């Protein structure tokens, strides 16, 4: 049976599923119950400096985006870092770590961008017996207005500087948590690497307004008629996070760094996708906040049985396996030709593929008077939209055309040679190279 134990930047845990730094990890009671439920580790809710703690709003903190059946697809929050006194958090961290020595206990920290502030807090955290620290350079609301969180994460030089201080003042592994609110995720990751970080984790939440109350005209969540942008997370952000993780995993400057994958992970499948795209472990917040701690059961069992089916014996064997398959658009094989195929046996005749292709795409689906839908190969560009809008799984599929066949759309023979844009005659750059 596949082994789920994980060694992430030297931090060991019985499985690669950690709870991300957020409300689920904001106190002893929660974390003990999470460990009882089987989570491999936690990143404790971000701690601030000693002294009076920050205060949160006293109205609603969350906004939501729903799918069918009110399924929570996206959550946004305007919560700050922990609003409980530092010494209380430290005492609890120590007690929990003592009782669960096999679980990963990582402590998230956000203090002002001053050397003294970091020098002061790190020994206190180390004293708890925690396994590592995570630098919160990602919080996009509230804390960033005070020059912390994403305000630091958006400036690679600051990331490098603070990371260096941390490596200097503590022997604990340092994980740098990145904000997605930037244009090129590789730059902050590179800065973390330069500063000596042991790992990066991403993504933190995305600047967002989930909705506006059309009666009061206040953005949600509404605090006395006004709203502030919050941080977006949950299933909706997964594609953004996956792409960012893969970019770091395949950039030569950062490829060596362990990545803790975060963002929208809800099932074992999401977790496996992060792992194969380069993550060494994963962190989860919204899914736990939506369904409770018990989801880790499904995640562990699902990941393990998938690994067994594929013959991967360890998490390390899975990590990064799909990275070589992430490439630039220009290297995609233009001689790979597919056509949409509609299974008449599975078709329920809703006609959504027809509406999509006819109204907005390539007029490549024919509809008979008795509602039989068929693909017109002469028109089909294989865009996949019909597959995406079809409500029945596997009813419409993309079938590869065999080598030697004539593509009825282009009239060209399907070539078995690989050919991409860099050598395509329509590419002005390619022509120049040939001259």
């Amino acid at each position: 049976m596949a082994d789920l134990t994980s060694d992430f930047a030297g931090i060991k845990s019985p499985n690669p599923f950690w709870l991300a730094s957020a409300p689920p990890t904001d106190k002893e009671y929660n974390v003990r119950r999470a460990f009882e439920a089987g989570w491999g580790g936690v990143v404790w809710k971000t701690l601030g400096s000693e002294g009076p703690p920050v205060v949160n709003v006293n109205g609603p903190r969350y906004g939501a985006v729903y799918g069918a059946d009110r399924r929570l697809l996206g959550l946004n929050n305007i919560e700050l870092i922990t609003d409980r006194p530092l010494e209380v958090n430290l005492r609890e961290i120590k007690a929990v770590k003592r009782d669960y020595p096999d679980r990963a206990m990582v402590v998230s920290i956000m203090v002002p961008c001053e050397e003294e502030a970091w020098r002061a807090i790190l020994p206190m955290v180390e004293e708890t017996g925690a396994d590592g620290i995570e630098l919160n350079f990602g919080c996009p609301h509230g804390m960033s207005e005070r020059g912390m969180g994403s305000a630091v994460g958006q400036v690679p030089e600051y990331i490098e500087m603070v990371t260096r201080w941390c490596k200097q003042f503590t022997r604990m592994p340092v994980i740098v948590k990145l904000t997605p609110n930037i244009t090129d995720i590789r730059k902050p990751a590179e800065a973390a690497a330069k500063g000596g970080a042991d790992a990066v984790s991403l993504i933190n939440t995305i600047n967002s307004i989930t909705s506006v109350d059309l009666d009061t005209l206040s953005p949600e969540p509404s605090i006395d008629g006004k709203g502030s942008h919050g941080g977006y997370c949950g299933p909706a952000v997964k594609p953004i996070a996956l792409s960012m993780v893969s970019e770091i995993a395949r950039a030569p400057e950062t490829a060596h760094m362990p990545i803790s994958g975060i963002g929208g992970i809800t099932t074992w499948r999401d977790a496996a996708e992060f792992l194969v795209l380069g993550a060494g472990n994963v962190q989860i917040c919204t899914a736990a906040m939506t369904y409770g701690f018990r989801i880790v059961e499904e995640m562990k069992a699902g990941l393990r049985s998938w690994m067994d089916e594929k013959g991967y014996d360890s998490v390390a064997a899975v990590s990064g396996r799909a990275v070589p398959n992430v490439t630039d658009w220009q290297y995609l094989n233009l001689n790979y030709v597919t056509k949409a195929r509609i299974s008449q046996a599975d078709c329920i005749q809703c006609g959504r593929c027809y509406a999509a292709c006819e109204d907005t795409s390539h007029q490549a689906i024919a509809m008979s008077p008795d509602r039989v839908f068929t693909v017109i190969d002469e028109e089909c560009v294989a865009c996949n939209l019909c597959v995406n809008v079809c409500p029945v799984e596997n009813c419409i599929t993309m079938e590869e055309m065999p080598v030697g066949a004539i593509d009825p759309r282009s009239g060209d023979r399907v070539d078995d040679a690989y050919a991409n844009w860099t050598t395509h005659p329509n590419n002005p750059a390619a022509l120049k190279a040939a001259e």
Partner: protein
Amino acid sequence: MSNTPMTPGVVPQRLSRTDYADGFSDMHPPLDAHEALVAADRCYFCYDAPCVTACPTAIDIPLFIRQIQTGKPGDAAKTIFDQNILGGMCARVCPTETLCEEACVRETAEGKPVEIGRLQRFATDTALVTGVHPYQRAEPTGFRVGIVGAGPAGLACAHRLAMKGHDVTIYDARPKPGGLNEYGIAAYKTVGDFAMAEVDWLMEIGGITLVSDTALGRDVTLTELRDDFDAVFLGVGLGGVNALRAPGEDFPYVQDAVDFIADLRQAEDKAQVPVGRNVVVIGGGMTAVDAAVQSRLLGAETVTIVYRRGRDRMGASPYEQDHATRHGVRIVTGAQPLRVIGTDTAEAVEFAYTEETPEGLRPSAQTFQIAADQVFKAIGQTLAAAPEDLTLDGAKIAVTGMGRTSAAGVWAGGDCASGGDDLTVTAVAEGRDAAEDIHVTLIGASEIAAE
């Protein structure tokens, strides 16, 4: 409770108060707002949706469901009323399992269609409680249209004509408008005074005058109407009832099912409606099922529907047959009545099993009896009297196109006219379409006259 289901004869009060209240409560209770959202989420917004094709009034179902999804049930109601002004009643009485919901692609996919009927009710109920009538009359045209019959066909026709600015007068033989909405539909399908309330709401458009207790053929003639009005629409339904032509038909409590149903609908207190201990219903359609089920709900001990052919030939859909059997009604098929047995009152009905022969259905020599102190005849309704000189198609008024009869200036629709199923929704569609045709004809004629 002075009587029990076992009390012999035809008597009232066989059950407790709560039994009556439960039995005659809403058959498909309304969806609450949350249930409606969950149900609406299942709609796929199909292209050229099959449900719309299956609806005789062609309501834009995906659109109205999307409007419910987006928190606008009032807009959804408007979408429904645009096609079907009696969308509220249709939401309650349509056999959706053979119409829109049968065509729903999720019926194909999972055997569980989107609950279109109940969603339609949710939307229309929301609109009706506001009490605001959503349409305004166009500028008066000066044309006057006479309508006979205030059933679904006549009402739909009247409303559409009023919208177009014509003046409408409806004559109805009965004291109350609504036709079978008021006097026919099973009580548990339309509880409370919904039928009446819906008619009142419909009339708010203005320009419609209702003349009750006035029958064509008795109080007014078609010739007079054709003289008085610019156009005439006949929506008289099927007032006549087929006779059994069996000895014993004259015993008391050997009755037309439709009369029993009408009395039941009008009864303020269902406990006061007498019903037999053993009830036999002869027929195989919706009327037979409604009479049988409601007899059980009134406390009859045994109720048997006897139909002369097989189950597959019954007018009542499999869903309705199940509805009957679920209520403890026994369905006997392949038998026809020979005579009602009894001395002063009915005691039993004698039946013969039937045989298919080249000459048609024949009684065989094998007979049997079923005890009965009340017998309902539900073997089909007919046109009561063919209005003067109109060409018939079989037993109905022949119509072509959008309800044109053989007489110029006379349209017909609903159950009395040829074509289409005998359903409330079909009557609405035909009334509405005839109104459109009348409008085009009147306006067209006046434009030509003006030139």
